[in-house]
């Protein structure tokens, strides 16, 4: 993985790296990916699931309930006139 790739991946992941970090991560990940090339030898196309054990589907109709205290949550946010404040969208 070269420095340009690291920079590109970092941008997608919303990370800004120093030049030193870019160099170091490129070196570290190059070595890790070289090791992971062993996966090329593993048989592919076999069965797979996204979990190691079967998981039940627990979808159900919505039920109105109070889970956590909304006021408590609001008090921990940056609030302006009862609305949560965030950065500019454009």
């Amino acid at each position, binding site marked *: *993985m070269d420095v340009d*790739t*690291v920079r590109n*991946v*970092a941008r*997608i*992941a*919303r*990370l*800004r*790296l120093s030049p030193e*970090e870019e160099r170091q*991560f490129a070196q*570290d*990940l190059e*070595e*890790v990916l070289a*090791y*992971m090339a*062993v*996966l*090329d*030898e*593993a*048989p*592919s*196309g*076999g*069965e*797979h*699931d*996204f*979990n*190691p*054990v*079967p*998981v*039940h*589907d*627990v979808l159900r109709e919505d039920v109105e309930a109070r889970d*956590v*205290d909304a006021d*408590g*949550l609001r008090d*921990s946010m*940056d609030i302006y006139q009862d609305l*949560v*404040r*965030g*950065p*500019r*969208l*454009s």
Partner: protein
Amino acid sequence: MSCLPTADKLRDLNERYLAFSEISPSLEEAQGYPPPFHFSAKDNLCAKGFQARAGSRILEGYRPPFDATPVAKLRAAGGVLLGKTNMDEFGFGTFCTNSGYGIPRNPFDLERACGGSSGGAAAAACMLDGHIALGVSTGGSISCPASFCGVFGLTPTYGRISRYGLIDYGNSLDKVGLLVRRSEDLRRFLPIISGADPKDPTSCAQPPLRLERKSIRTVAVPKQALQNLSPEVEEGFEHALGRLEEQGVEIMQVDMPSLRFALSAYYVLATSEASTNLARYCGMRFGVRGGSISQHYNDFFTEVRSEHFGREAKRRILLGTYARMVGYRDRYYMKALSVRQLVISEYQNVFGRSDLVLTPTMPFVAPRFSEIEKMRPLEAYQADFLTVPPNLAGLPHLSLPCGYADALPMGMQFVAPHWEEGRLLDMAESWSKGFQFRFPEVCR
């Protein structure tokens, strides 16, 4: 009944060992009555009255308004929560040296690591007699520190214990478990914290715990697990196998060729899942507020993440983001999912012939901090080659102390079929009979 340390005593102890990232301010009131037991929660498990920072600076000040299910269950059983235990940031580490809140010290030797990522939990279980430490394992984060700190570390089947209130690392891999000094505490507390919880769908498919006692007759040792061990672990493990045979357990060596793919598959899946899970820490819903909100949201999010994530977190986010990118997904992520099934099938095949699979837990005893500093990231990842396979496969496993080298503990790790935690408890109890456990006298 275990002794409950005073708050002052606990704080003194913690100044030296840094096992806890936060200690209950109201412990003294808890002393007013003798609680049935005391426990701690790894810092990625939410608990009312405490911060939940998962070892990360990005969660500084986060106070969840609810208890994680296993915490709630232990409180309901009468336990007093002493505090939150220190950990590698979001679970990212083999040695517990990647915490934003200091590095916990091994109770056997202050110059050595506790193991990661539940390092604080293992140190607490080691130092405090009768303590019940809740840990979490994604790829070995209970077994490894249990081995380095000389305690029992039980990681149940994926889904056995609700993950509600757990700060996710890798959703298909995370498991809550126990670190304790005594095998009988596993039998007592596993049923308390287990069970279906509608708030975590992965816990709802589980069969009941089967805890009737049976003796373990055969144990399989994969030959792939006997490579790259330090001389003292090799010798200690040989000695332990001899002791098992004396106890009437038949040891058979087996070939598990898929294990050579397990470490790579694990790091692909774990970092892929982590990189999506960590997207939420951007300073809005979660994560400390960063710079000016007059910035564009991209710059605002980037600033918070770049300033507050630690180095290993950034490394794993990069790796996981890369592995999921168009053009690489089939080569890494999809391949890793296939390997997981392959590893599960291979274990199932071996369980047709033996009750448990056994390996050493870690290839070496607790390393010195000076040795860890010299390790490259890949070398640290490779140290997980024995703990990763059962974690990848979601199989229950238990690390227990099997010997001591130069006064440092080492562990061996038993793996059982899915949902068969009972076999691990049986093994823990038979092994404990006559075994000379050693604990450092740091808390008198």
